[in-house]
């Protein structure tokens, strides 16, 4: 069976969930061969093997952390040349997309970004994407070269599918371009202990209606009662009430959870672009005319300062 390269997103060896989802999709096309780079690369093998990786190519050179993007492109290209895969799949993070795009140029392949589903087809993999703020769904193919496809989080279920997962060292000779952009300092984001926004099954978001940084405690309390991630509209982020890393929408994160709860958010097109594909949508807004209500499965017209704490209390009571 043809092999499919899967680029591994991990933090010091801990594989992030979107990569495990990629393995599920990769198995529809062929045998997944994973590529893990940087500190802790070899530690990813157990998790990858458990989810279907037949092989794990690793390289933990310091270049990956010291310089931006290009060393990873060099390594992925080395893996591509070693394996001659039927497709290359990369998680759709900002960095993942850049790595994939540069690889595609080098190997003269077309690229599809932000796929939300992937299936084998007669003429190569068929990718499903959302367009125009998720108001359209498209199906596309790559017609030139080896398909390079980036896939969004929550596009497939994580499935156990034990495979060999044999670790092999990947030999990489870095290009002149590799050291072009130096990372002179790095400040890791502090963990909040809550689920990752793009990976969470439930997202609770607050907007301008939350009316102040201190009031986000109400949103966080609801999120914690449900084990959810916290999101924010750009209005709330621009006001300085919540970090940009939590922004949902066109220029923030795009999320597709089982449940999305919007409080004090009007539902502007740029916000919808990042949450419209959520399975169940709930909104709390005091304006019955707010466009967010066009999307909801359940909406409460009311003051979020009344409704949200009552909901939190009720959730906590029911959980016992």
């Amino acid at each position, binding site marked *: 069976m043809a092999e499919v390269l899967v680029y591994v997103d991990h933090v010091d060896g801990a594989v992030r969930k979107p990569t495990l989802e990629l393995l599920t999709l990769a198995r529809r096309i062929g045998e997944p061969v994973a590529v893990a780079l940087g500190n802790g690369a070899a530690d990813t093998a157990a998790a990858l093997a458990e989810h279907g990786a037949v092989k794990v190519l690793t390289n933990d050179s310091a270049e990956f952390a010291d310089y931006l993007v290009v060393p990873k492109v060099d390594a992925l290209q080395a893996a591509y040349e070693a394996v001659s895969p039927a497709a290359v799949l990369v998680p759709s993070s900002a960095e993942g997309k850049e790595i994939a*795009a540069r690889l595609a*140029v080098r190997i003269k392949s077309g690229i599809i*970004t932000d796929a939300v589903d992937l299936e084998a087809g007669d003429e190569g993999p068929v990718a499903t994407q959302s367009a*125009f703020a998720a*108001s359209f769904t498209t199906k596309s*193919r790559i017609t030139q070269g080896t398909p390079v496809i980036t896939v969004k989080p929550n596009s497939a279920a994580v499935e156990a599918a034990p495979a060999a997962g044999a670790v092999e060292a990947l030999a990489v000779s870095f290009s002149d371009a590799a050291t072009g952009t130096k990372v002179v300092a790095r400040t890791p*984001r502090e963990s909040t202990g809550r689920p990752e926004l793009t990976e969470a099954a439930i997202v609770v978001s607050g907007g301008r209606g939350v009316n102040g940084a201190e009031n986000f405690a109400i949103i966080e309390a609801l999120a914690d009662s449900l084990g959810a991630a916290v999101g924010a509209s750009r209005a709330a982020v621009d006001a300085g009430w919540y970090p940009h890393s939590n922004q949902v929408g066109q220029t923030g994160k795009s999320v597709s959870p089982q449940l999305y709860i919007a409080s004090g958010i009007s539902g502007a097109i740029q916000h919808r672009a990042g949450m419209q594909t959520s399975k169940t949508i*709930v909104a709390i807004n005091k304006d019955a005319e707010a466009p967010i209500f066009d999307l909801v499965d359940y909406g409460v017209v009311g003051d979020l300062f*009344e409704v949200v704490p009552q909901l939190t209390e009720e959730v906590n009571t029911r959980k016992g």
Partner: protein
Amino acid sequence: MSLRIVVCVKYVPDATGDRHFTDDLTVDRDDVDGLLSELDEYAVEQALQIADEADDAEITVLTVGPEDAKDALRKALSMGADKAVHVEDDDLHGTDVMGTSLVLAKAIEKTGYDLVIAGMASTDGTMGVLPAILAERLGVPQVTLLSEVSVEGGPNGTVKGRRDGDTASEQLEAALPAVVSVTDQSGEARYPSFKGIMAAKKKPVESLDLDDLDIEAEEVGLEGAWTKVDEATERPARTAGTIVKDEGAGGKQLAEFLAGQKFI
């Protein structure tokens, strides 16, 4: 020596309009008014600020797009850019990111540059990969997705910036020439002044076609694209949900709904 900045700007259908695909499954550019992609306004703004800081700088705004794309160039010129280049050719219809990046790279080389600045993503295609591809094609460093950017030392100097990523915030540095992209966190874009709008009318707009760039028609357009859209379907409108007015028990009612859906 003057610092030569090229800003890549895209002309896109207004995101707040009712956007559609045409019969050949390309973006319908007739039904909805077009404008300078809002995310590229941030690129123009940072170019203007970098030029202000430099001893001597010249900003060229560059677009690949249909006749109407001149509007996007005019807007950028009225914000304060010095001149414009418009690559326009009937054979460009339906070009994908690989083709567009090829055309942009050739046009940038022809124009001459020390620094290329792009937006974080176009508001219609929303791929966000073109700046990285440009860096690959031009063979210069990529310093992308910056929320803060500055240039030191003129045309042979250094570009520095902050990239706020998923897991960390990074300080980046590269020697010029380089390709930069900036996010909407980089600072609000200015509005064109009346004076700026008047001045823009007299600024030069150079038109280039594929011949001028030594690009064959087969390399671009719908036929030259390396990806193919087979199907585009409008997402069915979400079925109308239940909407209740809070009369004091709204939170409890909502909890009941969530429990019914097994979320609690």
